[in-house]
């Protein structure tokens, strides 16, 4: 049963010159197609990885999946609900938002530097009205911190008191706080050191098992993907060029672009 479904997903940006300039120079409108007719489906409880280089459109797809950006054409739905539907009431929008959250790439820019960690984690709980009462909310915050391998005493601290890896854990805790069913991971370990990356990837895996989460995992690193994904989609300049399980993709790549990516990836001896 497909849980996340992308159908003919397209996103175009209008890069044309202003109207007056176009009239005077007779130039046509110019468009940049960041995502071009992409379709894929993700089964519940699995991890689907979108792999591509910069400019491949993977981050754009992530933003459309979570409702931060509207598609120019096509749809991306969660359990047959469309987050980008303009006609949804605010309540339905809010209940949809609760089910799908995101972990971002930069550990430094993804947490408000002026807020304490406890407040950052409590905010989604309050916004989605999941738990009432400050005491109960605080308990839930402590619970979340422990689930990601931090301690309740960390709730009083500010983000800058933590290392990059710990900050990503806090980001993951924040994503978990709304009890989502889907987490979009946008290059969550690209900015981390190798040993920390391993910790965060293992954490994501164990959380997936514990809470039956579905992941859409965006990355440029084929090696990372081989250890986390059930299915891999390769993006090139906005188009999905190949889709396969990790085993198939690595042993028998069908497209030239995929082969090129595999060859270019630095190999350990």
């Amino acid at each position, binding site marked *: 049963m497909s849980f996340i479904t992308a159908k003919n997903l397209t996103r175009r940006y209008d890069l044309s010159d202003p109207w007056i300039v176009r009239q005077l120079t007779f130039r046509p409108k110019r468009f940049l197609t960041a995502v071009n007719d992409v379709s894929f489906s993700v089964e519940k409880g699995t991890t689907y990885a979108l792999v591509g*280089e*910069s400019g491949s459109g993977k981050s754009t797809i992530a933003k459309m999946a979570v409702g931060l950006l509207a598609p120019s054409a096509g749809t991306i739905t969660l359990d047959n609900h469309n987050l980008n539907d303009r006609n949804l009431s605010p309540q339905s929008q809010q209940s949809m938002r609760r089910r799908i959250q995101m972990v971002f790439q930069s550990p430094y820019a993804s947490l408000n530097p002026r807020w304490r960690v406890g407040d950052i984690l409590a905010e989604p709980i309050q916004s989605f009205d999941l738990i009432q009462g400050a005491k109960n909310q605080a308990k839930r915050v402590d619970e979340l911190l422990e689930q990601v391998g931090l301690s309740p005493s960390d709730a009083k601290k500010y983000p800058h008191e933590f*290392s*990059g*890896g*710990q900050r990503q854990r806090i980001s993951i805790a924040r994503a978990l706080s709304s009890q989502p069913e889907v987490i979009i991971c946008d290059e969550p370990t690209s900015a981390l*050191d*190798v*040993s*920390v*990356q*391993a*910790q965060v*990837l*293992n954490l994501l*895996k*164990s959380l997936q098992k514990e809470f039956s989460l579905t992941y859409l995992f965006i990355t*440029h*690193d*084929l*090696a*990372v993907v*081989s*250890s986390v994904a059930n299915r891999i989609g390769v993006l090139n300049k906005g188009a999905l060029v190949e889709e396969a399980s*990790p*085993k198939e993709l*690595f*042993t028998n790549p069908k497209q030239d672009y995929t082969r*090129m*990516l*595999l*060859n*270019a*990836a*630095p*190999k*350990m*001896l």
Partner: protein
Amino acid sequence: MTQPLLEVKNISVEFKTRRGALKAVDDLSIDVQPGEILGLVGESGAGKSMMGAAILGLIDPPGRLSKGEIWFKGQRIDQNPETLRGCEISMIFQDPLVSLNPLKKIGDQLVETILRHKKMSRAQAIDRARKGLIEVGIDPERLNAYPHTFSGGMRQRVVIALALAPEPSLIIADEPTTALDVSVQAQILELLKKLCRGRGTSIILITHDMGVISETADRVGVLYAGRLAEIGSTNQVLRSSKHPYTQGLVASTPKIDTSSFGQSLYQIPGSMPKLDAIPTGCAFHPRCTQGTLKCSQERPPMMNNAAACWLLEETRQGI
């Protein structure tokens, strides 16, 4: 045994803060042979960029080279590194966006660099610049182009051309491919390798990416908390690592390996200590699964020219 091109002897780089002097690099010694590519690998905070900067005397106050000597071609250079900077020793930085002056055409930047270090006429320098661009795979007609008209990978090629222009004996490349896409990264590394082998230029390749090291470097040094943990040929260090940190690092690097799919990655517990909280004895001992009491008390020296680890001492004596 040929004389090393560069000898770094027991250098320390210290920063004075109100909490005392912090050591970004602590008693580090390493050599670079002529014509070799030496990799310096370590995670953030390990001190590898500091080392590169120290060689060229680019440490800004409040940091300073507090101890040790740096010898280049048999002469001491740590006292006055400016004479060699850009001439005998060049540097390539990570971000090509900021390494090139956005207001100057690349041809002008190349010619300026050439004329600064070699005596020749302007026409000759322009000719040299064109040849330099061809070598790095850029159309020489683009001499009059501005940096922003190039893509990231092309810009890094220009930077390499700039670094090679004065015909240095040593290039220090600080994370030269980190900001680039994987496919471009492979091309740039190939280019660096080809050009330097061809001219016999040595490279110090600073990176955090083990994969880059394994494809490019002849020898590699592993840095941890400002100290050299292990050194040896790339094959040795990556395949049969002697230091527990290197072993952990290699094990936790994800590999394109279908047999390991679904399994958790090995992870080294804990994290690299901050500069003001470096443990006594061996800096790695709190995270080491094989540590002994001695590890927490005394800092291990480099054993057998391979790894700084007390465990090696035992094996040596055990024979």
